């Protein structure tokens, strides 16, 4: 397997860090506690009112002057932390390149970026079992990457457990990197950990083999995660419909995220992790 966090990763990570230097490290990132809560915080800005905002934060003077509702935005003086859930179950070890390669790198890039910005990171990796740990300070970067390098394996139940762990973690933003193939239990788990004012981002990874399957003839399909087998002949119709299901899954994740006010990023496994990380950062910021 290709080295996940090699020299190339760190060289290109510099761009992600540079991107953060203009945002998170100056306290303007999604971890800065930028919710509309007025308590124990410092006033920072106004933004247009959105349904669901706490009415106590509406600036009534601005409403009187401008005729449009605005809420006051405050910055939490204590930095928030980033929760990361990485799906490293068996289905993620599929595709060329493997899906977990770009997934681990995106999770690693964002985790290191948060640490560099002074924000703690609570990471959970779903493999054969859940590996969970809280990291703080730049010195813990190596330990974070070691955790994210856990060997792939395990089933969707482990991922659900890892996500549910976010519920008790004191994080101000969270990130779930997965293929979301077992969408129903995973969606339910995400719903259980939603908190007002805590932005979340779903990073969905799919491989070319799922989006453009090239199987043909008589096959026995072996589910990489459950070991279930399907036998039969793959024809053009089956290829087309399987690809449509994979694309449909992408739409479902995006739709779920929209309904729950989460962000979503779609990443093909052959996509450059740097671009994917930058897009994830952008979406995460846009959720504020």
């Amino acid at each position, binding site marked *: 397997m290709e080295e996940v966090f090699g020299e190339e990763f760190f060289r290109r990570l510099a761009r992600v860090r540079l991107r953060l230097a203009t945002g998170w490290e100056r306290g303007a990132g999604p971890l800065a506690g930028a919710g509309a809560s007025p308590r124990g915080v410092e006033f920072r800005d106004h933004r247009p009112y959105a349904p669901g905002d706490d009415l106590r934060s509406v600036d009534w003077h601005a409403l009187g002057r401008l005729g449009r509702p605005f809420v006051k935005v405050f910055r939490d003086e204590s930095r928030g932390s980033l929760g990361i859930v990485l799906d490293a179950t068996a289905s993620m070890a599929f595709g060329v390149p493997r899906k977990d390669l770009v997934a681990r790198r995106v999770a690693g890039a964002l985790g290191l970026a948060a640490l560099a910005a002074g924000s703690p990171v609570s990471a959970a990796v779903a493999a054969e079992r859940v590996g969970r740990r809280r990291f703080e300070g730049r010195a813990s970067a190596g330990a974070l990457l070691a955790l994210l390098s856990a060997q792939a394996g395990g089933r969707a139940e482990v991922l659900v457990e890892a996500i549910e762990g976010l519920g008790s973690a004191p994080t101000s933003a969270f990130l779930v990197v997965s293929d979301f193939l077992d969408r129903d239990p995973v969606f339910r788990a995400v719903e259980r950990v939603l908190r007002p004012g805590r932005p979340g981002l779903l990073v969905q990874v799919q491989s070319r083999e799922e989006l453009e399957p090239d199987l043909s003839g008589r096959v026995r399909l072996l589910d990489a*995660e459950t070991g279930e087998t399907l036998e039969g002949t793959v024809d053009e119709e089956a290829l087309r419909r399987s690809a449509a299901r994979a694309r449909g899954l992408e739409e479902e994740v995006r739709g779920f995220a929209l309904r729950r006010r989460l962000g979503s990023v779609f990443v093909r496994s052959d996509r450059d992790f740097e671009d994917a990380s930058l897009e994830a950062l*952008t979406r995460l910021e846009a959720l504020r």
Partner: protein
Amino acid sequence: MTLASPAALLLLLLALPLLLLLEALRRRLSVRPVASADLWRGLLRRPEGRSPGALAPLDLSAGLRAGALLLGVFGMAGPSVRSSGGGTLRIVVDRSASMAARASGGRSRLSLGVEGALRALEGLPGATPVLLERPPIDPGPLVTDLAEARRVLPALEPTDAPLDPRSVLAPPPEGGEALFVTDHVPEFVPLGVRVLALGPPAENCGFVAFEVEGTAGRGIAIWALLRNFSERTVEREVVAVGPHEVPLGRVALGPGEARALSARVEAAPVVGFRCLGTDALAADDAVLSSPGTARLRARVGPEVPGAVLRALAAAGDLEIVEGPPEVGVDPPDLEVGRSEEGSARWRIVLDALRGEPFEATGIRFLPPLPEEIDLSGVRTGPVRGAPEGGRPILLARAADGAQRPIAVEDERGWTLYFDPSAGNWREHPSFPVFFAVAVERARDRAGRFGFARAGERLPDLPSGAGRVGVFERPGRPPLCVNLLSPEESSLPGGTAEPDLPAPRGARGSALAPLAFLLAAAGVGVSLLLEARRG
């Protein structure tokens, strides 16, 4: 039925085990890991519960393969059906004027057709009844026997009359066969009728060269060369095509004769000539092109966003018509509206050649995206067209500051891609830019499209001349000559440099032949055309 090589049937003994072996290999399951069986559940064509070693029932494709193998072996055995006198052979020989045309080797089409018919008679039992028909004159069947047919066929001569092949086509007699020898194959041939085709009649007379030159304020000068390849004199009604079709009169061309035609028409999206056959050959032909300088007429549907309208208005030289298509009115050159393929798809259709529309551009919003398109991080913002290798592309700026292409050109035209999650695509700054580029591309493509249909191979091609091609000069309107295909061309491949200026002052049909001959003699004759110098 008899078999020429009955021993070949023994191959079945080898072929059948081979077939079974191949089938067994084909059915061997290949184990393929997938990320999730859910993506495939219910899609495979076999029941899932069957045990791996169980013999599956033969499917249709296996049956077809076995059938093909059996037929192949059977064919090697050489089966033949000899009529015992019950089956009648009906031979219809087209003797219309076009059958007198010379085919390859200098022989007439009729001569080649008769030779083919005689070959078809070989091997038939002597008692086979034969019905020989010789339309268009003397169309009735000549009841004869095989020996008499062999004697009569070589003596057939072409006539001077036209023939509608549909009038003589009929199913073969019951239990018999039919053979139709013609150079004009109809679209529908009854079952049981074998056609011996010898080439379309259009090749007897047609345009071999074409030139268009537009002058601002003075209309468009068109010039073409019409040549008769047949062995007889043909007559054609010549029509100049501009904003309206203007009859130029009747032209008579002797065997092998060429005639230069020129006219000046008002600016129109499509200009050129048509020639209509008025004699027995009845072969119409046309050369049409868009000079690229004409004002295109665009019709936009009511659902077209304002941004697109503004882009079209800014494109210049476009007459924009709004509203639904009007019946009986000349169709527009550009149709801008929703694609019938789906509400999320828009298109610009260029119909400059009247009836030969092609999609100049399409806009797709849904994945999968082509490899060169990466919408990640691309946001609404400044978009610009940037030339790349002489072709305009559209670039959008991504969040990381990099510029990325968001449109690609394929065989169907230009396609623009948007991020499906961007809900304001109608007002996206690239939208009007893209339409402006698309209109430009459509105009450019219209200016390059046209064809000159050519007849048979020129028997007297001058030495050194060999090609009719497209010759363009910077700043001048493109010349549109494009032979349909080498097979249909009268001209062999290769290149030629000598110059053949178009005849000057030739108008209609009176002075054109003389002008053409003078011009040809003056420069040593070539068929490479170039835009006429002002």
